[in-house]
């Protein structure tokens, strides 16, 4: 079961998964959110994105998910320039990403199974494949047997694991998590982080935005630190 999740989908081998090249993002009313940010992530790398609130962490993640476009510079995801991606291409870019949110963003009126299956349904997988892969993903995050529950009947940690199962179900090469442990206690946070490390082990690139400095230091991965929109450490 574990094997079906372990190999990420690799359409073409690009050693650099994500590249920010002198990227700035200016909002018309709020000013510069990101200023001249340059870094790259190798395939299979694990990195934290830290900084005070309002430092630009969320903006940076939004640029990768094409929820925003940068004002200057360019963002390359798996070799593809996101600046020039058309609206029509955006869904297919997002299928390369596993997005995880602080508020989980689960559909409250759907079962755990339906929530986790969503990326596969959207991508047009058959019923049979969906059932098999959803169970494998739920097994991986330790929620097998809770397929028929509604999200609100689960604890916060369990809901976040549903979110993670959904994010990895279609084997994306890059996982982006925005404060994934923001609403969880330290013990649950460690468990969630352990899951992310498992994904890295099998070649997935992981970028986690967090302000939990203690957790970041304890885990000892690469840290990208933002301060008022500038990258001050990478």
């Amino acid at each position, binding site marked *: 079961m574990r094997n079906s999740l372990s190999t990420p989908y690799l359409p073409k081998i690009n050693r650099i998964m994500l590249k920010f090249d002198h990227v700035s993002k200016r909002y018309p009313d709020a000013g510069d959110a990101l200023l001249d940010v340059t870094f790259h992530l190798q395939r299979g790398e694990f990195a934290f994105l830290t900084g005070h609130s309002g430092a630009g962490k969320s903006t940076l993640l*939004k640029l990768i*998910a094409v*929820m*925003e476009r940068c004002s200057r510079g360019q963002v390359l995801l798996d070799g593809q320039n996101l600046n020039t991606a058309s609206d*029509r291409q955006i*869904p*297919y*870019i*997002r*299928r390369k990403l596993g*997005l995880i949110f602080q508020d989980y*963003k*689960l*559909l409250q009126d759907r079962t755990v199974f339906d929530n986790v299956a*969503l*990326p596969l*349904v*959207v*991508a*047009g*997988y*058959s*019923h049979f494949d969906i059932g098999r892969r959803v169970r494998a993903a739920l097994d991986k995050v330790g929620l097998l047997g809770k397929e028929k529950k509604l999200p609100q009947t689960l604890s916060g940690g369990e809901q976040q694991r549903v979110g993670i199962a*959904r994010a990895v179900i*279609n084997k994306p090469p890059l996982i982006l998590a925005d404060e994934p442990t923001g609403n969880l206690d330290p013990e649950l946070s460690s468990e969630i982080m352990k899951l992310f490390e498992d994904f890295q082990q099998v070649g997935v690139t992981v970028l986690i935005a967090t302000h939990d400095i203690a957790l970041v230091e304890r885990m000892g991965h690469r840290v990208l630190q933002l301060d008022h929109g500038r990258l001050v450490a990478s």
Partner: protein
Amino acid sequence: MLQAYLDIHAQALFSSLGRLARAPVTSLMTVSVLSIAISLAAGFYLLVANIQQLTGGLEDSNQISLFLKDQVTDDAGVKLAEKIKTFVHVQDAKVITKNQGLAEFREYSGFGDALKALDKNPLPTVIQVMPEHSLEEGPQLDELFKNLTDLQEVDFAQLDMQWVKRLYSIMELADRGVTLLSFILALAVLFITGNTIRLELHNRRDEVIIAKLVGATNRFIQRPFLYTGFWLGFSSGILAWIAVTVMLFILQQPIDRLSGLYDGVFSMRYLSFGEMMSLVAISSLLGVAAAWAVLCYQLRLTKPE
């Protein structure tokens, strides 16, 4: 892959129906309003169609009736008719003798008994002149009419076509009125459905955003809403058909009675099977079109951020 595609469509078809069924009161109210609009259009259409059927037989009465002077005998009338037949633009001329006229009058007017009280036949000899079909209107017809009126034996002439023409003009007006009304009611259906879909989209905004974030194409997101539009239009079409049929059914008896008094010249016409199918097809199409228009506009505004 095809199987998965069909799965997606079947899923959207039934999930949108299920969604409507889960809010039965709201759905029923929307469908009722829609079907009232549709049945109004269908009802007026049928009204005009029925009247047209009633007046359809009048097409042949493009004729000039010549009422001959009282002293002109039937024989003289027949001779005159032969003469008129040789006129240009005259297709045929037929004599109705005094006695024939009386018999016809007795049969159709219902005043037969009153006629017995008269000591002599008061009706004149009549010649019915059929102009050529090409002569529907214009100066040639006017000239023919004038020539016939000027004949010595003719008391007065009547162009039957005039009132038929008036009637047809009225029917044409009614026909166009119904088309116009149907158009306005179709717009109403579009707006009502569009607004329903817009509200539905608003209620499911989170779902749309999450679907977009996990890589759903606009087409995927649109699908269930398009099916919702289809179901609304489809069920309103069916309901409108039922409403119109029930209304006609209620009218059937008094109309039959009325028709009986006029020798059964009129039998009521219901929507044919083909008309029913087009009614349902048009309303379904309107539902889908309204949903599509709203989605095109709204989905561009619904961005994940």
